[in-house]
């Protein structure tokens, strides 16, 4: 892949800082990716709220219109469905990285406003110290054994990961139509909640390990990286459900009001370089140029070995943009009234 132009590097260095948001260090290997970027170009990286959901990221751009201070993010990494809406709201600006052509067309905006970055499938991340019988499929989650155990990895009103989880439950129920699938997912979680299995907490590695949420529904790559950081204490199993395997694509974009536009562009160049893509892969994420890299034999074998079995991805459903939008609308709008997970 081509190197970024010297002018871009120079311009970025002049800006000196890149402001990112919502990049937890154990998400997709971002810790190392950021470190690699810093080391390579010598820019500061100002990391805003690593725990923000996709919605929060969009809001951060809105809130900081007219503010060029360190509170304003330059770049965002959001769920696929958030890309088009952000574009429509005029919150992001176009840019085409030098490896643009190797990104599948289905996963990028033709004008370069947003572009897919990596994907994974939703899985059950289970603390097997507490949960002796690991759930295999969505339906298992309703068992009374799992009372007070299950958590989403975000608030469905704000987090793409959580929305996708609900949607996946809908797919597992056999719904094909996106809106219906969304509703079915809501209904499923409504039941979970009524049965007292759903914990109104954002599931994270800590809550997983400490046992407040021994089952977290999260992207497989998150589960795997949590497993690694916990180093077997407690033991964690990542299960891809038998049905309703929902694959989710995230997208990158540059804020329309980015205080450091050149640094943002350089960041994109880095992410979509071979180095950046392999960085994600190390974090168990399938980078969007996976096929391209594989074709060119650029992926070390030991990296491939550590990935989840390819079989899991065979059943994976990639919802289209429209499906995602429909599902998201159905889910965020009615989450409160149908599920209403509250403190009791």
């Amino acid at each position, binding site marked *: 892949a081509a190197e970024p132009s010297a002018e871009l590097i120079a311009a970025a260095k002049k800006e000196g800082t890149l402001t990112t948001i919502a990049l937890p260090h154990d998400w997709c290997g971002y810790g190392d990716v950021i470190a690699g970027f810093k080391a390579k170009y010598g820019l500061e990286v100002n990391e805003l709220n690593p725990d923000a959901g996709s919605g929060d990221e969009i809001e951060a751009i809105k809130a900081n219109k007219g503010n060029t201070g360190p509170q304003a993010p330059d770049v965002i990494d959001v769920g696929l469905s958030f890309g088009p809406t952000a574009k429509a709201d005029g919150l992001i600006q176009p840019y085409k990285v030098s490896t643009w052509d190797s990104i599948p067309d289905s996963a990028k905006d033709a004008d370069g406003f947003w572009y897919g970055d990596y994907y994974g499938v939703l899985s059950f991340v289970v603390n097997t110290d*507490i949960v002796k019988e690991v759930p295999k499929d969505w339906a298992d989650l309703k068992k009374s054994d799992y009372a007070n155990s299950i958590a989403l990895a975000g608030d469905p009103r704000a987090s793409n990961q959580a929305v996708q989880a609900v949607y996946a439950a809908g797919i597992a129920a056999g719904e094909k139509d996106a809106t219906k699938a969304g509703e079915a997912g809501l209904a499923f979680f409504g039941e979970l909640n009524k049965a007292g299995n759903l914990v*109104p907490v954002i599931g994270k590695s800590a809550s997983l390990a400490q046992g*407040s949420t021994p089952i977290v529904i999260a992207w497989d790559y998150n589960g795997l990286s949590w497993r690694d950081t916990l180093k077997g204490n407690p033991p964690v199993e990542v299960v891809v459900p038998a049905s309703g395997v929902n694959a989710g694509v995230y997208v990158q974009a540059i804020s329309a009001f980015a205080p450091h536009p050149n640094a943002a562009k350089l960041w994109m160049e880095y992410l979509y370089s071979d180095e950046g893509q392999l960085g994600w892969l190390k974090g168990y994420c399938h980078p969007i140029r996976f096929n391209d890299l594989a074709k060119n034999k650029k992926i070390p074998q030991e990296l491939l070995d550590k990935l989840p079995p390819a079989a899991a991805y065979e059943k994976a459903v990639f919802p289209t943009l429209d499906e995602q939008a429909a599902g998201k609308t159905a889910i965020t709008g009615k989450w409160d009234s149908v599920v209403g*997970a509250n403190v009791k």
Partner: protein
Amino acid sequence: MSTVSTTPVVSTAPLITRDRVIDWLGITPFIIFALLFLIIPTLYLVVGAFLTPEGNFTLKNIGDLFTPSILSAYWISIRVSVASALGGALIGFFLAWAVVLGGLPTSVRSTLLTFSGVASNFAGIPLAFSFLATLGRTGLVTIFLRDWFGFNLYGTGFNLLSFFGLTITYMYFQIPLMVLILTPALDGMKKEWREAAEILGASNVQYWTKVALPILWPSLLGTTLLLFANAFGAIATAYALTGSSLNIVPILLYAQIRGDVLHNANLGYAIALGMIVITGVSNILYLMLRMRAERWQK
């Protein structure tokens, strides 16, 4: 020798004015600071509560407070705050009573007071960690109960993230605060009052019901109100316990202003206004009761 002419001397007015100006200058930095960093930012939001995103006047935001999810957030917040305030007040009262009037060695008193100074500031995120480590699913107490008594705490439906769990967590800083505020009030209870009552024939119970509690109630109630406000505004503890998805007012507000879903910052302002009104009212009541209590302490 001391009789005197009575020529009235006109007072030198400008001198007084200059003095007054200097007087005011002395507190100007404070006033400016308070205006810039406390009052105007708050007014900004208070005004915002009555505006549409476009900047027109509206009462809709206030009206929107009465939607079920927001009401339920207020409701749970109020319940947790009331419960932790009452619990904190009650236990704190007994602790303060024990060290002030219980005839315990003075070392116990100074230990408790020092500890309370620390613990009342031990709110926020670390507190949440502590309780997760203690009463969480793999917490010390939970495991202890399981291994030694075969008692499955979580099997009873207990959950640290419940109303009860939050209340018990909040009480960790509520009790010490109560102890700190109430100890001076109890110190103000003169030994002679008790003795006077006793020598007039009153029993212990009569002393407490007719003399001690009537004297103490402004302090007790006032402090309870303060605890209530204290709990109502506490965000960090709940945030760390539950990671922002808990539907209590401070978190809802956080999500509204910062977050995305309902896309309505002005509604967020209205929620904030509601909070200010609630904590404000309880604080004002607290101040009034304190004044009343101090009147007696003279």
